[in-house]
């Protein structure tokens, strides 16, 4: 065994550790250079924004309490992320803990919304009588601002975890159900026909053709739903929301801690971007055929 592999390995190994770039390198280098330039542009834009912010603060157009400086926001970010003078972060929890609790609520809420919304969308998309009854209900829910039904949820479920999760479910279910229903309806007729010719019955058509064919749009629906849940989490945490990023913001608002509010907003936004990128990656992994024939 060693004899057969021996002549091969040394041939490559003792070579110089490739100080020169491979032949295809210039193109990759150019691509990487382009990517770097775009990243640099983003950084410059961010710097300009921060500079403008700093200028506005320095000009003292508004009182410091209303418009804190970037430095103050940074300070609050550090404060809320550490234990200082025996105080744990902000409102008794670290920023990352607030964020973690909110993300968990979003995860559970949209998770249930997917579990309920996809079958619901399938039924609405495939069964006419169900669509007639439930589709207006879904649209009705979709147009409601979460704060409108929060009070009802508090009356029903109290002020603990359940009203928050319920709010996120109600907020994120309609986009998933609507996207699924629309996708199931627009499954290419030629694929349905091909499946029928192969002997597929109604159930098999629904589960083996309509559902997978709708998967790309369903995942888009999930991404929208996560976005909606994100925008609703502050509303969900209006009452007894600590720990939770929304609760933290409400608390800070009560004491006019503008910088903390801004820290919370930035934390929500940045984690949202990250999560969306994650979902996009998931989409690519789950529906590699998207955009192909």
């Amino acid at each position, binding site marked *: 065994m060693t004899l057969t592999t021996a002549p091969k390995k040394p041939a490559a190994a003792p070579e110089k550790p490739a100080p020169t770039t491979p032949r295809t390198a210039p193109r990759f280098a150019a691509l990487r250079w382009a990517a770097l330039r775009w990243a640099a542009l983003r950084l410059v834009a961010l710097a300009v924004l921060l500079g403008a912010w700093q200028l506005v603060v320095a000009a003292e157009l508004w009182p410091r309490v209303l418009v804190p400086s970037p430095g103050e926001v940074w300070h609050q970010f550090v404060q809320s992320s550490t234990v200082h003078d025996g105080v744990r972060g902000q409102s008794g929890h670290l920023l990352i803990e607030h964020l973690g609790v909110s993300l968990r609520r979003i995860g559970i809420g949209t998770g249930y919304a997917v579990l309920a919304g996809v079958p619901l969308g399938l039924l609405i998309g495939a069964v006419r009588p169900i669509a007639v009854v439930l589709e207006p209900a879904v649209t009705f829910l979709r147009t409601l601002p979460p704060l409108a039904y929060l009070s009802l949820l508090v009356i029903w479920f109290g002020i603990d975890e359940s009203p928050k999760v319920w709010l996120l479910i109600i907020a994120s279910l309609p986009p998933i159900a609507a996207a699924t229903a629309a996708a199931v309806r627009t499954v290419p007729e*030629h694929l349905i026909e*091909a499946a*029928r*010719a*192969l*002997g597929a*019955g109604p159930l098999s058509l629904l589960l083996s053709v309509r559902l997978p064919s709708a998967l790309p749009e369903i995942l888009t629906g999930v991404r929208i739903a996560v976005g909606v849940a994100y925008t609703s989490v502050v509303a969900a945490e209006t009452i007894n929301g600590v720990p939770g990023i929304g609760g933290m913001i409400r608390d800070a608002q009560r004491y006019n801690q503008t910088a903390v509010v801004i820290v919370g907003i930035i934390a929500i936004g940045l984690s949202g971007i990250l999560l969306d990128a994650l979902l996009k990656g998931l989409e690519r992994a789950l529906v590699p055929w998207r955009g192909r024939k």
Partner: protein
Amino acid sequence: MPQAETVVAGPEVLLEDVTVRYGRNARSLTTAVEGVSLTLADGEFTVLVGPSGCGKTTLLRVVAGFERATEGTALVRGSAPAPGTGTGVVFQQPRLFPWRTVGGNIAFALARHGVPREQRAARTAELLERVGLAGKAARRTWELSGGQQQRVAIARALAGEPRLLLMDEPFAALDALTRERLQEEVRTLAATSGTTVLFVTHSAEEAVLLGTRVLVMAAPPGSPGRIVSELAVDLPRTSDTDPAALRATPDFARLRGELTATMREAATLDA
């Protein structure tokens, strides 16, 4: 029992005075085909040839069970045609399921025909080999060329071991070389399996090459499509006949010429 025997002995496909009309009301009503009668005997390779818009696809869809005859009778093995009941269909486009692999597409058909899970992999490999795609089961459908995709579609249609195979211009979108190769493969497949084939094309060349019997359809301007002529193709063919050599024979040229002339004449005929 004697009834069952008559069904088996009867023709594979029987169309009697079939008329297909589209449209919801009298004003938008159009007649695609009118008064078509046709029988396909068991094991016959029949080609339906004619210009586009003459109703040949409509007729095939009636036999497939996708379309219902407005008037007249359509029977496949003695009963009204319905999709997925022993009739394989190959469309002009492969119509593969992109969310399934090549093998997955075939396994789907196998599952619908009650092949147990543990046998599907072996049967899939077998079917892929029959269409010259051995070892491609794990590939994604879009990684294959158009010709290969159409081969998968053929393998998928054959998965249910159909007694009747309907092919609707299956090679129209392929390049000439691929088309020639697939034509020969389909002819051999049909000849060896004894499957009845109804093949739709607009090419006189393809019709003569494949069919043992060619039916010419035509729809002169403003009138519905009908079968206007029938041509028996009695070319000397065995399983190892070289299609190129066959094409070069005077008989082939004569038949193709006859057919082209018939088609041209039919297109200008008054209804």
